[in-house]
C-alpha cells in the first residue's frame, strides 16, 4: 500500500459525482439535431426535388446525405470531448465505441454525398466536368476535396485491419488531422450548400452549432489536458510484483482535488523526453486515496513496458479518472470477480471497496505462476469478507477443463452464480468467454460488468 508521506490525514478520494444525464436526454438531443437538419432540408424543398428530374432528385439526395454526414460528424466529436456528464454515465470505452460507429456512418454518408453530387453536377456537362468542378472549379471545392480525402483516410486508418498495421501513436496523429479535414470541408457547406447559402437563419444555426461544439472540444477535451498538465503527479514508488508485472504509486499534493473510485482508470503520460506526447490508459489497482494512486502494470507493449521501467520521482501527467465499472455496481448483492492476468489490478481495488455481505468469489486466471501478483493481498481481503479465491493457472492446453468459463463449470464451482453480480477484468477474449458463460448460467446481462481491457 502507498506510504504516507505528507502531514495531511489519509482519506479515500471522494467518489466522482453521479451524472445528471439520462438516456432520454441523449435521445432528445439526437432527435432535436436530426429534426432540425431534416427540417432545414425539407423546408428548402428537399422532398419536392423527388418529383422532378434526375438533377433535382440527385441534388435533394446530395443535400440530405451531406447534412446527415455533418450531423454524424458533430455527434461523433461530442463523444470524444470526454465530457464528465457523459463519461460518468456511459464510460469512456462505450463513448469511444459509439464514436467509431458514428465515424463509419459519417464516411458512408460522405461517399454517398460524393456520388450524388457528381451525379447532380454531371448534367449536362458529363461526369468528367462534374469531377473537375467539384475538385476545384467551384469556389472552396479544392479545399473541400482535400478535407474530404483527409476525413476518409482517417476513417480508413481506424478500420480494424488498418488500425492493427499502425502503431498507436501513428494512428493517433493521423486521427488528429481529422480536425483539419472537417474545418476544410466546412466552407463549402456555407458557400455552396443550397440550404445555407440562401437562408440566413439556417446559416447562422449551422455556424453556431459548429462554433459551440468547437468551443466544447477546446474546453472539455483540451482543457482537461491542460489542467492535468498543470497538476502533475510524481512516481513515489515502484514495486516488482511478479515477472513483468510492476506496481507504480503516484503521489502529489493535487490528489486532494481528485475524485476517483476503485475500478476506474487514468490516462498516464510520463514527462520524459520522447514520451511526453503519448498517453496510455492504466487501471487503478487499489482504492485511490490522498496518499497515492496505485497502478499495476504488465509489460505487454512498448508503452506499458516503458511504464514498468519508470523511475521514482518521474513526473507523470494523469488525465482522468475515467470508467464506470466501479464497485457501485455490486450494491447489496453478492459478487463474482473474474481477473485475467494483469486484470487483477482493478479486481483488487473492487475488493477493497466491497461490503462483507457481498461474500466475493474471485476467479484468478493466469498463464503461469510467475505472472501471479497481489495474491496475498487478495486472500486477506477476501477472508475479511467471507469469500474465497480460486486460481486457474497454466496455459489453456494444460487446464483440466477445455473451457473454464463454460456455464457448467461455473455453476459447479459457484452454485449461487445466478444471484451474483459478475465483474470481469482481463484480456478481451477472456472477458467475452466470461460474459457468454455467466449469461448462459443465468446471470442477467445487466449484472455482468466489464470495461474494455486496458493495459
Amino acid at each position, binding site marked *: 500500500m502507498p506510504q504516507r508521506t505528507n502531514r495531511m490525514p489519509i482519506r479515500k478520494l471522494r*467518489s*466522482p*459525482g*453521479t*451524472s445528471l444525464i*439520462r438516456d*432520454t*436526454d441523449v435521445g*432528445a*438531443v439526437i*432527435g*432535436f439535431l436530426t*429534426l*432540425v437538419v431534416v427540417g*432545414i432540408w*425539407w*423546408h*428548402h*424543398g428537399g422532398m*419536392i*426535388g423527388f*418529383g*422532378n*428530374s434526375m*438533377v*433535382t432528385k440527385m*441534388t435533394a439526395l446530395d443535400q440530405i446525405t451531406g447534412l446527415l454526414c455533418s450531423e454524424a460528424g458533430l455527434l461523433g466529436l461530442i463523444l470524444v470531448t470526454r465530457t464528465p456528464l457523459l463519461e*460518468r454515465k456511459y*464510460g469512456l*470505452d462505450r463513448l469511444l465505441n459509439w464514436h467509431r460507429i458514428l465515424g463509419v456512418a459519417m464516411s458512408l454518408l460522405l461517399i454517398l454525398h460524393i456520388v450524388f453530387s457528381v451525379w447532380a*453536377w454531371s*448534367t*449536362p*456537362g458529363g461526369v468528367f*466536368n462534374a469531377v473537375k468542378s467539384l475538385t476545384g*472549379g467551384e*469556389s472552396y471545392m479544392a479545399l473541400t476535396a482535400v478535407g474530404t480525402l483527409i476525413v476518409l483516410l482517417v476513417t480508413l486508418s481506424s478500420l480494424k485491419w488498418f488500425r492493427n498495421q499502425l502503431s498507436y501513436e501513428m494512428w493517433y496523429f493521423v486521427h488528429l488531422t481529422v480536425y483539419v479535414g472537417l474545418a476544410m470541408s466546412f466552407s463549402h457547406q456555407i*458557400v455552396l450548400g*443550397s*440550404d445555407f*447559402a*440562401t*437562408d440566413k*437563419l*439556417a446559416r447562422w*444555426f449551422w455556424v453556431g452549432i459548429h462554433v459551440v461544439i468547437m468551443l466544447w472540444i477546446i474546453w472539455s477535451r483540451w482543457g482537461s489536458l491542460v489542467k492535468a498538465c498543470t497538476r502533475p503527479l510524481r512516481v513515489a514508488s515502484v514495486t516488482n510484483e511478479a515477472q513483468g508485472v510492476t506496481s507504480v504509486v503516484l503521489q502529489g499534493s493535487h490528489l486532494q482535488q481528485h475524485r476517483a*473510485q476503485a475500478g476506474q482508470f487514468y490516462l498516464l503520460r510520463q514527462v520524459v523526453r520522447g514520451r511526453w506526447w503519448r498517453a496510455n490508459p492504466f487501471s487503478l489497482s487499489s482504492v485511490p486515496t490522498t496518499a497515492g494512486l496505485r497502478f499495476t502494470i504488465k509489460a505487454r507493449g512498448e508503452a506499458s513496458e516503458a511504464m514498468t521501467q519508470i523511475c521514482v520521482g518521474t513526473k507523470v501527467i494523469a488525465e482522468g479518472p475515467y470508467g*464506470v*465499472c*466501479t464497485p*457501485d*455496481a455490486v450494491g447489496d448483492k453478492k459478487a463474482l470477480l473474474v481477473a485475467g492476468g494483469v486484470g487483477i489490478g482493478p479486481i483488487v481495488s473492487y475488493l477493497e471497496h466491497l461490503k462483507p455481505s457481498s461474500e466475493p468469489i474471485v476467479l484468478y486466471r493466469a498463464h503461469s505462476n510467475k505472472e501471479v501478483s497481489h495474491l496475498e493481498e487478495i486472500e486477506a481481503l477476501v477472508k475479511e469478507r467471507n469469500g474465497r479465491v480460486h486460481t486457474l493457472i497454466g496455459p489453456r492446453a494444460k487446464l483440466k477443463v477445455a473451457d473454464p468459463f463454460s456455464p457448467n463449470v461455473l455453476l459447479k464451482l459457484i452454485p449461487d452464480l445466478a444471484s451474483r453480480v459478475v465483474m470481469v477484468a482481463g484480456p478481451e477474449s477472456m*472477458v467475452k468467454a466470461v460474459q457468454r458463460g455467466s449469461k448462459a448460467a443465468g446471470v442477467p*446481462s*445487466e449484472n*455482468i*460488468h*466489464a*470495461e*474494455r481491457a486496458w493495459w
Partner: protein
Amino acid sequence: MSQNRPPIGRQSKPTFARQVMPAVALTAVGVGFVSLLDGSSSGSVGLTAVATNPVVDPNAPTTIVADPNATAPAAQPTNTTLAPTPVSGNSAAPVATAAPAATAAPATAAPVTAAPANPGACDGDVVASPSAQFRYGVIQLQTQFTTANVLCNVTVLQFPNDRRTSVQINNYALPIYNQEAVQNHSAKIRAISGATYSWQAYVAALQAVLDSRP
C-alpha cells in the same frame, strides 16, 4: 463491453416527466426553428418553379408568336435582372426575371433586343425555349427569328438567382452569351470561365429551339 452498466454512483429512477420533458422541449424548439426558416426563400421557389417547367426536350419546344409591340409585363429591373443594352428601337424594357411568374406567362413577354444583326428584319417568330435544368437551377430563353428564319434576338426568361454568386455570374455571363448567339445566329458560343454551368444549360436551351426550327 456492450453490457448494461450503471453509471457511477446511483441514479434514482427518473420520473416520467423528467424523461419526457427534454424531448418535448427540444422538439418544440426544433419545430419552431424550422418554421421560422426563410419559407419564401428562392431556394424552394427555384425547386417548385422547376416543377412547372419541363426539362429540355428537343422534340417539344413551345412556340409562341408574340405581338412584338406588346409592352413588357411588369418587369422590375432589380439587381437580379439581366440587362443587355437594348440596341433597336424596340420600346420594350430589358426583360429577364427569373421569377416563376414570368415564365408562367411567357406569351406576354416582349422580346428584348440584344445586338441584333439586322435590326430591320427581326420581326419573325418569337419562341420560348424549354427550361434547361442544371445543378444551380434553370435557364430558359426567349428567341426571336427573322422572317428568313435566322436567329436575331435572345433574351433570358429565367436563370438561377437564389444565391448571390449565381446572380453575379449570370449577370455577367448571360448578356455575353446572348450577344454571341445573335452574332453567330447559332448555339456555337464560347464558354466564359467561371460560368461553365450556365453556358452548358444556355447552349442546351438554345440548341433545343434551333433544332425545332424548320
